[in-house]
């Protein structure tokens, strides 16, 4: 035996593999519990801090969580005869909110296509500027819509236009990144073929890349439209048009307009659910094909 010449090989796990395994399990449990304790300590202290920094305390407020909704529902129930009328009264502003989302998705999506193609390796018009365009998209994406909107409301005044521009800017950054990721995986052969017969850059993109990426891009755009509906409802809250603005007015008024609050809540809720389902259905068809 060769082993005897070198002496017995030291057993890596004295006590057999079982002891080694158990030691590993014990070590992992120890790490796990230390992490868990750390986590809960962080959480408890953070929660305590949040509680202390808040205007009202958690425990005093806890029983009030349902007070406000209950109050709202009670008043709305008392005035339930008004609800259908109010419902129709707020449909135009809901449509305005949806329109803001639609226009900003279209404008932002258009900008995103250009930005994405310019910043995708292998497709870019000016390969040296890829860095510039991808940083530009990062910047557009990093600023929350509401911050852009706050600046634009100051600059342009209230109304739907600042909201539209703010969402479009954010959308172009967010969609641009997703578009570019899809385009990166596109097959380059059609592009090379088009280049070899003398197609210009625009033609190469339109006939070589777009047909490959269109279903995925459309799917992302639909998802973004869904997100933008929520965003445009929120932006109304800081002072630019749509259903959010009505909601803010009704909530600030307080008692006496709670029937409006309920009407707005329910119309907003229904719209979000409707578009959620619609876009989910369409996206499934786009990515998996019409006939399953």
């Amino acid at each position, binding site marked *: 035996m060769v082993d005897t010449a070198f002496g017995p090989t030291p057993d890596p796990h004295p006590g057999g593999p079982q002891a080694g395994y158990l030691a590993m399990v014990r070590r992992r449990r120890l790490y796990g519990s230390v992490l868990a304790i750390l*986590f809960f300590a*962080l*959480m408890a202290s*953070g929660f305590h*801090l*949040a*509680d202390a*920094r*808040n*205007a*009202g*305390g*958690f425990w005093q*407020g*806890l029983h*009030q*969580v349902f*007070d*406000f909704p209950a109050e709202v529902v009670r008043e709305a129930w008392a005035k339930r005869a008004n609800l259908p009328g109010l419902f129709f009264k707020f449909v135009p502003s809901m449509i*305005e909110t949806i*329109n*803001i989302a*639609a*226009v900003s998705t*279209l*404008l932002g999506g258009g900008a995103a296509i250009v930005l994405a193609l310019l910043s995708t390796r292998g497709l870019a018009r000016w390969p040296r500027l890829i860095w510039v365009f991808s940083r530009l998209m*990062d*910047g557009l994406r*990093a*600023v*929350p819509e*509401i*911050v852009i909107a*706050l*600046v*634009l409301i*100051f*600059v*342009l*005044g209230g*109304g*739907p*236009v600042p909201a*539209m521009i703010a969402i479009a800017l954010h959308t172009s950054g967010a969609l641009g990144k997703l578009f570019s990721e899809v385009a990166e995986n596109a097959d380059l052969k059609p592009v090379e073929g088009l280049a070899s017969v003398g197609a210009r850059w625009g033609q190469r993109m339109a006939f070589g890349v777009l047909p490959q990426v269109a279903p995925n891009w459309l799917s992302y755009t639909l*998802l973004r439209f869904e*997100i933008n509906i*929520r965003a445009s*409802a*929120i932006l109304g*809250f*800081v002072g630019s*048009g749509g259903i959010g603005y009505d*909601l803010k007015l009704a*909530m600030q008024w307080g008692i006496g307009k709670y029937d409006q609050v309920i009407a707005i*809540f329910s119309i*907003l*809720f229904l719209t*979000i*659910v409707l578009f*959620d389902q619609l876009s989910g259905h369409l996206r499934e068809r786009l990515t998996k094909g019409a006939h399953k």
Partner: protein
Amino acid sequence: MSLPQDEIDHYKRNLPRAFAAPLSLRLRRGTLALGFAALVAWCLYAFGFSPERIWNGLGRLGRVLGFMFPPHIWTDPEDIADIAKGLGETLAMAFLGTLLGALVAFPLSFLGAKNINRFTPLRFGVRRGFDVIRALETLIVALVFIRAFGLGPLAGVLAIAVGEVGVLAKLFAEAIENTAEKPQEGVVAAGGSRPQAIRIGLMPQIWPVLLSITLYNFESNVRTGTILGIVGAGGIGFLLSDRIGAYRWGEAWSIIFLIIILVYVIDWLSARIRARFIGKWEGVR
């Protein structure tokens, strides 16, 4: 080797469909494009969009942007502490909200997973429950909590947590459904009970995915936290809307830069952690 023009014309005449899409398709495309263009045009008109307004706005934008440079740097230690606290609060809001949501969502997700909860009506009910929670806008929930707890980060934490329950429970349930059955069957075959099969056969499969999902949502909640701050739920957003309301644009710009840096750093860190320990998972809500 290019073809002479008359040959091209010849083929164009004889094979029209090779050179242009069929009429019905062209019609459909045209209508779609026209419809979108009309929508944009009509909306711009209805919103009162005019070049004049943009032109006037540009002047003001220039003035506002002028405050960006040189950037405002806080020198008073009290101000610095205030801003740092705001940033910390936003981070804490996102962290606590995500964690709280995850803790509640975790047990619920088992009820919504097809391979754990085989009682279909209950599972359907739970799933629809997730949908309803997800449709509740975080901002609206925050407003309700602000009414109950007063202005401050607590309302933000709870609002994020409520929203997260719906999102995380759905994603967790999908992760549980996407596991392999075999390890669980093995545990049962070796004489383990059903809870043991879940603990030993299923949990090791889903841990990394759950962690990854939670981190990703933490990342997006840092943004949400900023937004909630603007409506009064504490954090850096609150300071920002305060400075803009007081027309202190120099400070406002510096805060905006800090927010961008914060979001960027968190994104980068979390992407690194996810890639290093967990592997890639790019989620879309």
